[in-house]
């Protein structure tokens, strides 16, 4: 069986490539998974978060009218400027914390925001460990939501069976969209970054198209908005939180077990780290790629299902927001480990609910600030040399900044 498109590389290596042999010199070891270079260290991650909050504080100051005014007479009453600065930063960040974890309601909102981020983040994490860059969590999530939603509002099933059927449909939809990518990669060598991005567009367009169809619209309405899913197809609540977060945590444990404790995960990690060595050891690289993308799609489908089944929601054109894209950030921030993904997902969930509270606070910091914070964290994580310079970390063994890397090089 032809393993994949690249199997024609069996010829004699071009003379130049025979050079990459033998023991690497000095402390510079050759890392076999080039993508692993994208993952930040734990220290850098925390330092980046701190640095982002610091830059965020400056932004809070310049966006606060009172602070700006107090600085205009800084030399007469400097104390005023300090006091108003401190209070603006304090108010904003206090609102961010209390708004995300300060009350039962806040925690509920944070967890409900975090759950789909974690699931979609796991979809990126799992694929990443197999050496695949899954940009397509968004599309897989949309397909999952379409399928889960349709079963949720179109069919009339007994209570427990309905939610299970809707969930299963969501998982299947995501798995289909992900598996397609894996199959294309395995059979034709099509690069997953290209195919996932394209399938994102196809997924979004499919949703828009379906929402113009009568069966996807509320009766007697032309709005691109489906019926609400039936009450018995929604997730049951536990302590005021819909059980999506429970599913997300279960999924994280499942992914951990799969990666670290199962033969399938062993293959997956082996192929992700060094596909040639995997092939030589008898693994089918094509099978691993396909399987990894099916499971990744399944996880993203779970995220999509949560979005529509979590509460009695309708399917709309932009129900998913940018969860599928934030998921990439979540996975990278979580160093492509299940635990890290859960923590990063919770952080991003907290930031987005806390942002709302921040806007409503006395400092009335714009909601956009939380998005800026998220973006800054990612920016700093992506530029570890910068973070290390700011905090004067000891130079790690990998030395200076890692320059841009190609997808396939």
């Amino acid at each position: 069986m032809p393993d994949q498109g690249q199997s024609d590389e069996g010829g004699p290596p071009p003379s130049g490539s025979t050079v990459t042999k033998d023991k690497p010199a000095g402390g510079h070891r050759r890392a076999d998974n080039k993508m692993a270079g994208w993952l930040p260290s734990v220290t850098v991650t925390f330092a980046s978060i701190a640095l982002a909050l610091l830059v965020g504080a400056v932004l809070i100051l310049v966006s606060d009218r009172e602070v700006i005014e107090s600085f205009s007479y800084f030399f007469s009453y400097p104390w005023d400027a300090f006091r108003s600065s401190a209070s603006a930063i304090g108010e904003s960040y206090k609102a961010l914390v209390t708004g995300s974890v300060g009350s039962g309601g806040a925690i509920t909102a944070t967890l409900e925001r975090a759950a789909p981020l974690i699931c979609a983040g796991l979809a990126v994490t799992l694929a990443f460990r197999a050496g695949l860059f899954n940009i397509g969590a968004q599309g897989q999530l949309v397909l999952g939501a379409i399928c889960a939603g349709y079963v949720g509002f179109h069919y009339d099933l007994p209570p427990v069976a309905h939610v299970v059927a809707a969930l299963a449909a969501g998982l299947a939809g995501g798995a289909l969209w992900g598996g397609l990518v894996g199959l294309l990669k395995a059979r034709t060598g099509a690069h997953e970054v290209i195919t996932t991005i394209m399938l994102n567009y196809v997924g979004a367009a499919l949703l828009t198209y379906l929402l113009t169809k009568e069966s996807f619209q509320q009766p007697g309405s032309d709005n691109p908005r489906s019926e609400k899913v039936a009450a018995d197809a929604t997730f049951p609540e536990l302590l005021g939180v819909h059980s999506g977060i429970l599913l997300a945590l279960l999924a994280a444990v499942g992914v951990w077990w799969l990666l670290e404790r199962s033969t399938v995960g062993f293959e997956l990690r082996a192929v992700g780290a060094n596909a040639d060595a995997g092939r030589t050891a008898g693994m089918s690289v094509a099978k691993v790629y396909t399987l990894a993308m099916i499971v990744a799609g399944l996880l993203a489908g779970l995220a999509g299902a949560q979005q529509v089944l979590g509460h009695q929601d309708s399917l709309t054109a932009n129900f998913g927001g940018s969860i599928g894209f934030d998921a990439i950030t979540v996975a990278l921030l979580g160093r492509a480990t299940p635990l890290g993904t859960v923590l990063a997902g919770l952080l991003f969930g907290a930031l987005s609910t806390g942002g709302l509270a921040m806007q409503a606070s006395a400092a009335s910091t714009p909601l956009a600030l939380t998005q800026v914070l998220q973006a800054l964290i990612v920016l700093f994580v992506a530029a570890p040399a910068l973070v290390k310079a700011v905090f004067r970390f000891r130079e790690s063994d990998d030395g200076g900044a890692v320059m841009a890397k190609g997808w396939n090089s």
Partner: protein
Amino acid sequence: MQLEITGLTKRFGSFTANDRIDLTIEPGEIHCLLGENGAGKSTLMNMLYGLLDPDEGEVLIDGKPTTFATPGDAIQAGIGMVHQHFMLVPVFTVAENVMLGREQTRGLGLLNRPAAAKLVRDLSDRYKLAVDPDALVQDLPVGVQQRVEILKALANNAEVLILDEPTAVLTPQEIDELMSIMDSLRESGTSIVFITHKLREVKEIGDRITVIRRGKVVGTTQPTASESQLAEMMVGRGVKLVVDKDPADAGDAVLEISHLTVIDGRGATVVKDVSLDVRAGEILVLAGVQGNGQTELIKAILGLMKPAAGQISLAGRNITKHGPRQRLDDGIGYIPEDRSHDGFIGSFSVQENLVLDRYQHDTFSRGLALDLAAMAANARDRIEEFDIRTQGPHSPVSSLSGGNQQKVVVARELSRPIKVLVASQPTRGVDVGSIEFIHQRIIGERDRGTAVLIVSTELDEVFALSDRIAVMYDGRVVGIVSPDIERDEIGLLMAGAERSNAKTPEDDSEEASTDA
């Protein structure tokens, strides 16, 4: 230019890679730096080239203390380095690569290519380094690429040239050519620091030899020292350079290859109608210059490449249609030619790499779940049995020295029941101590009745291991000879000479059986 190093020390955390190294390189000498992998040769040279900062000690040029913060400083001072892994832009021409970083321009910032080409021609005439300045680097064989690297250093007026394991990637012929290039450089007054762990080369070309072991200078000696003396200095104990081996007790053919033809991805026929038998209890060595079809033949045996024609049988069963996993299960053990490419996974632990092709078997898993306890027990046993020097079973294999990495691969393949062992360059980039050990294990496997097929481009290894030698040239087996053949004769066969001159096993009384 005289280059002197005094008390140079480099520590990585608690590990001292270089401990008070003293070394003097006189003008116009070839100074060999001999040591096992991981002895600290490369660390020393990286300090000399401004890639690493020494913790203590001094570098003196013509008696004056000098420090190099970057390779640029070192180049300025007249030090050139040819790395083991070439630093060339493959899609640039030779001339473009040589002028890279010091481009000459004609008004308007246009590159002055003719001047660069002329410079390359001048240099290659002066030092007898034949290179076409207009050839693309990617089209050149490895030996010529190395010449381009040397030219690059010379173009920067290097007076001391550091060659880091330059022969590791070369064919025997290319090594000879490199030796004569080094000779003419020495005559023109350039000093050369020649880093290697190959004793033969050191004796052949060196003026003085400094041996490094575990980061310390063990001593400086003359090339008149015997190979076993040098090996002992290098390893720190007596080393047997010749492997003890009883005559083979060959049985029936286990691996039978008949009329095998392999066509590569570019459509070139790389293995041409090859027929070979490997018998139980014998070692058949496939000799030949690299790139004459050995790699593809081995890949076809493993099922990693599909043959265009022909048949492969194992113990009488036709396995031509089997995939790699099935063939491994059929009883093929495989040691690949480039272990870091497909022999192990660097980021995986020793424990995981030791089961890389067996994790799915009942021994190491129950259903979908890995049996970590069984894997750990296996790792403990193998580490002890094969004397794998590692901090523990959970250390990533990438943290091991080349020799120990190879031991992991060998341990994995020899610890499962196999009918035939296929090993490609089993001791490439492996230190002397480990070579001895790996050779003994391979012979031990033969004595247990396994059929062994070895691919080697190093004649020393060919003669050390073989019971029969098959020589490959241009995709064909041009002769099957017995190991008492002269070195010259096998060299001729490897270079594609007619087979009639060489002895064949049919003429040889030792070889009782003749293949149909």
